[in-house]
């Protein structure tokens, strides 16, 4: 379909997203654009992320992602990396909590070699011992670097506090205790279990026509197993009013908060999305920014976000402030939320939020690499191509009453809190 990206402004540029099926039967989204002579492909295996790690072997998916491009087929790590470097091919993998994703970016005339190397990485990874040790050492060095960093501590504690006894409670990159226990066999088992064409989503953007894209998809993914066999992950809601404090002598106290969110397919999802922008999503414009930073100078950064994870929709947020004013900062955050529930947004405030959310959408589509990221992200969230065109109307239809209703539903929940720093006074 053809999509006009700024329907309100009447601009005429368009991103033409075409859904195609490759000869081997893989569905993918394609955008042809020859402005820059490169091809950007992003892909994701939905559900194959860190939630698939076995208890005690946290970090398996992350370690596997780090080693996939460290040797495959006939090429050991150095040979493989040299082929990438000398042919200007960018290839990388990443495991989030929910998904295993990857990126292949090539110039138009190295598409074939890029596809071949990607296929080798996906279907014949070597998992050589020295490559595993290198990657393991690097991940552990990264964990050690942030071992005592208040922000990193707050992130770890937030996962444990907001998602108790759930895979989301575990650190996706593993821990200094779990990483040394992951064996080559564990990585092979993960690889065999997690990668399947049944969970694969692909977007290709750039200097490549439909036939070329078909060939690229099959050269890269035809050899991937038909079916994955993932463990089921249960749904979890953020508990109400759980508070955890980690005592630490710091120059600045870190505050994180969370409460239950809303499912992507809930009729009020879009209202919640707009609500979050007004409350804490908009930099320079949100109520939290104005009250906590602009009016009181309490913080450099204060924010909230609406998270769409597969198994735990939630609203999260945070701020950092000098220890003696942490309690005041928390009080102001609570006051902003309760005032918003009581009064709702003004008409002007709602209109401004809608204008921003509609008007800024094209900024996500101004390079091939960004477009491919957007398109695979939509697929991983079950959004159809038509959403791009319908999105503006969905936002425009939101009323003050919609926001008030969804605020009363979501923002009344007692905050769950993580505080890292001196005890609050």
């Amino acid at each position: 379909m053809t999509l006009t990206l700024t329907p309100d402004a009447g601009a005429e540029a368009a991103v033409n997203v075409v859904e195609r099926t490759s000869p081997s039967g893989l569905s993918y989204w394609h955008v042809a654009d020859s402005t820059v002579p490169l091809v950007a492909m992003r892909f994701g295996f939905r559900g194959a992320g860190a939630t698939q790690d076995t208890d005690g072997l946290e970090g398996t998916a992350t370690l596997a992602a780090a080693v996939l491009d460290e040797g495959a087929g006939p090429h050991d790590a150095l040979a493989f990396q040299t082929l990438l470097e000398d042919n200007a091919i960018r290839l990388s993998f990443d495991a989030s909590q929910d998904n295993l994703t990857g990126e292949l970016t090539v110039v138009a005339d190295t598409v074939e070699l890029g596809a071949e190397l990607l296929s080798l990485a996906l279907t014949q990874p070597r998992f050589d011992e020295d490559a595993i040790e290198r990657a393991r050492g690097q991940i552990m060095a990264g964990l050690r670097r942030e071992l005592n960093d208040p922000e990193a501590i707050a992130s770890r504690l937030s996962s444990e506090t907001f998602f108790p006894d759930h895979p989301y409670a575990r650190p996706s990159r593993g821990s200094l205790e779990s990483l040394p226990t992951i064996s080559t066999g564990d990585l092979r088992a993960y690889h065999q279990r997690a990668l399947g064409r049944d969970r694969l989503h692909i977007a290709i953007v750039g200097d490549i026509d439909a036939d070329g894209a078909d060939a690229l998809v099959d050269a890269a993914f035809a050899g991937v197993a038909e079916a994955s066999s993932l463990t089921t992950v249960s749904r979890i809601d953020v508990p109400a009013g759980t508070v955890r404090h980690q005592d630490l002598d710091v120059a600045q106290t870190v505050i994180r908060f969370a409460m239950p969110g809303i499912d992507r397919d809930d009729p009020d999802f879009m209202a919640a999305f707009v609500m979050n922008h007004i409350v804490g999503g908009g930099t320079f414009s949100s109520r939290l920014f104005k009250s906590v930073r602009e009016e009181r100078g309490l913080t450099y950064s204060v924010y909230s976000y609406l998270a769409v994870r597969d198994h735990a929709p939630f609203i999260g947020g945070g701020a950092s402030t000098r220890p003696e004013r942490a309690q005041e900062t928390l009080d102001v955050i609570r006051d902003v939320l309760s005032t918003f529930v009581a009064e709702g947004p003004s008409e002007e405030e709602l209109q401004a939020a809608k204008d921003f959310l509609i008007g800024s959408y094209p900024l996500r589509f101004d390079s091939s690499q960004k477009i491919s990221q957007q398109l695979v992200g939509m697929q991983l969230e079950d959004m159809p191509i038509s959403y791009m065109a319908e999105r503006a109307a969905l936002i425009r239809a939101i009323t003050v009453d919609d926001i008030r209703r969804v605020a009363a539903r979501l923002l009344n929940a007692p905050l769950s809190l993580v505080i890292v720093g001196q005890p609050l006074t």
Partner: protein
Amino acid sequence: MTVFSAALGSVGLTPANASGGDMVFAPSASEFTLDNGMRVVVIPDRRAPVVTHMIWYKVGAADEAPGESGIAHFLEHLMFKGTEANPGDTFSQTIAQLGGTQNAFTSYDYTAYFQRIAVEHLPLMMQMEADRMKNLVLSDDVVSSERNVVLEERASRVDNDPSAQMRETYAATFFQNHPYGVPIIGWRHEIEDLSREDALAFYARYYTPENAILVVAGDVDEDAVRGLAETHYGVIPPRDGAVTDRRRPREPEPVAERRVELRDARIAQPLLQIGYLAPSYTLSDDATTPPALDVLAHYLGDGATSHLYRTFVHERRTAVSVGAFYNGSSLDHGGFYFFAYPAEGVTSQELEAEIEAELARVLADGISEDDVERAKRNLIAQTVFAQDSQASLARIFGSSLAVGEDLSDVQQWPSRISAVTADQVIAAARAVIQPHRAVVGLQLPQAPEAPAPADG
């Protein structure tokens, strides 16, 4: 022009045609100058109906008077506080309502403000940005509250992070005389003393059209930008009197190795840095050394196939990670740096000795023609990936012009890399990497032999 290696990812030239001899970076970019002296760069990219609008002031933290560290960055914050025509946060709210995003950043050599927005709003962005070039209004209350925000920013970025505290101390040691040794955000005790009058004096002195560069990238062409720029910026008179003098204190040639060692209970992963004062693209005795240093850094330590990575991570396994980079994009001095994370069971001091010995061996033996050719090819290939992003292009051209380079310097960079010879690389390496010129930094856990604390 390490902006390339820093801001860019990879590329789009294949080995076959990536000789770079005739490659022009971002060939559609063009430049002109308004009557009041303001330079303008236009970078067309018609893929999406959006623009990146940036104003670069040729003033940064290294232009501050002694004792006023942080004033350039503090003023950057205060520039969001309104004018008579657009009081308070009117500019920010207007940008948000039009679906734009914005921000600003302060460096040692420049301060930049930008908006990314639908192209039809470009005239309004210019009108409001031009307004705040001349008509900033500041009250004591606003200044006082924003000073607290900056102090919190410093607490977030530096005081809570031993690595950042190390970076500040390292820079203060690396530069013995140049203000690059003073943190951009400022020392805490000096930020606390910055006043409304300090900010307004800095503003009046430096925020003038002949001291600014306009960069517009995206769905525009040169003619359209020229007309708009003349209307909105061209009417601002240039500053009276002498042209701003940017001659700042310079470094003496180093004569003694210096060492900085930070031991902190919060550090669990040791880190080793070794740095050497180096020429930059704009401050060099000859034109060949800076590109030669870019090639050298790529060969020695850029990525998983570089010489040091192969030697210490693959073969000897004494490092978890190691790399090198060259900062040649400063207005004044550049620097050539190595970093390494020691492997378990290897001390930072042992690894330091190994790396220094290996560097000495490379300097003695030289670097092969093949290795130099490969490094050049791959460096040039990286530039294609940068051309995918209008925002990256705007930053590359803006930062380069702000330190005095010309449009053609940026566009011809691949040619300059292509012309580098193996002899030039080794000569540049020998001039820069000398033991008595080294500044060594070590970040270590508090107790030398104690294991890392298991509980954060």
